[in-house]
């Protein structure tokens, strides 16, 4: 039970829905959501940069470096969450990673067949966003289940 006069510094929101969900918005969850939000913002800027910036070094840096650096930040956050977790949570995080790989491989195989039936070829950015979306959902589910 969290004492409101002495809140747990590891928890930003202790109870939701009459105490049914306890301590979900912990630092790991907030960190991952922040990292993902940063990554999506940088990706958006990188996509929009060719329309706004003139050809040159700055544009190349924005298009190439910004998404990579934010992706590195997200990877570091997830790794630090993994390192700070106990063994059961680590087990669930690894399982989420394996499930993401399996879902992506299956989805890619299915879409390959659908492409043959006439569906348009997808950009790599769609595959990346789909992969991160699946991974984030599975990761947050793993953190929720081990809260």
């Amino acid at each position, binding site marked *: 039970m969290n004492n409101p006069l002495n809140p747990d510094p590891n928890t930003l929101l202790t109870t939701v829905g009459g105490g049914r969900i306890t301590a979900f918005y912990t630092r790991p969850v907030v960190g991952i959501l922040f990292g993902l939000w940063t990554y999506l913002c940088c990706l958006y800027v990188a996509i929009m940069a060719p329309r706004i910036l003139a050809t040159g070094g700055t544009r190349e840096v924005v298009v190439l470096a910004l998404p990579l650096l934010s992706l590195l930040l997200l990877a570091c956050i997830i790794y630090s969450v993994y390192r700070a977790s*106990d*063994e*059961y*949570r680590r*087990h669930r995080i690894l399982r989420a990673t394996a499930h993401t790989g399996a879902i992506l491989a299956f989805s890619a195989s299915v879409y390959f067949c659908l492409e043959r039936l006439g569906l348009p070829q997808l950009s790599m950015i769609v595959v990346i966003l789909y992969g991160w979306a699946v991974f984030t959902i599975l990761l947050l589910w793993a953190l929720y*289940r*081990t*809260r």
Partner: protein
Amino acid sequence: MKNILPELRSQRGWTQGDLALRLSVSRQTVNAVETGRYEPSLSLAFAMAALFALPIEDIFQAQRQPHRFAAPTPDPEP
């Protein structure tokens, strides 16, 4: 893997949270081990054994299923 963690815990009047606190793991870890959804690492099993002052084999009873593709066990020597 079967275990007698719930019995040992209730003998001492501990909740899953109390045990988790003493083992420095999350309550969900204790819950997963007790319900058999997760088999603890050796270090966690040793920590549990030390906490209850019992040998590991008294806390955990192995229920090994033969692996599907395992080599057949040799017949015992006559």
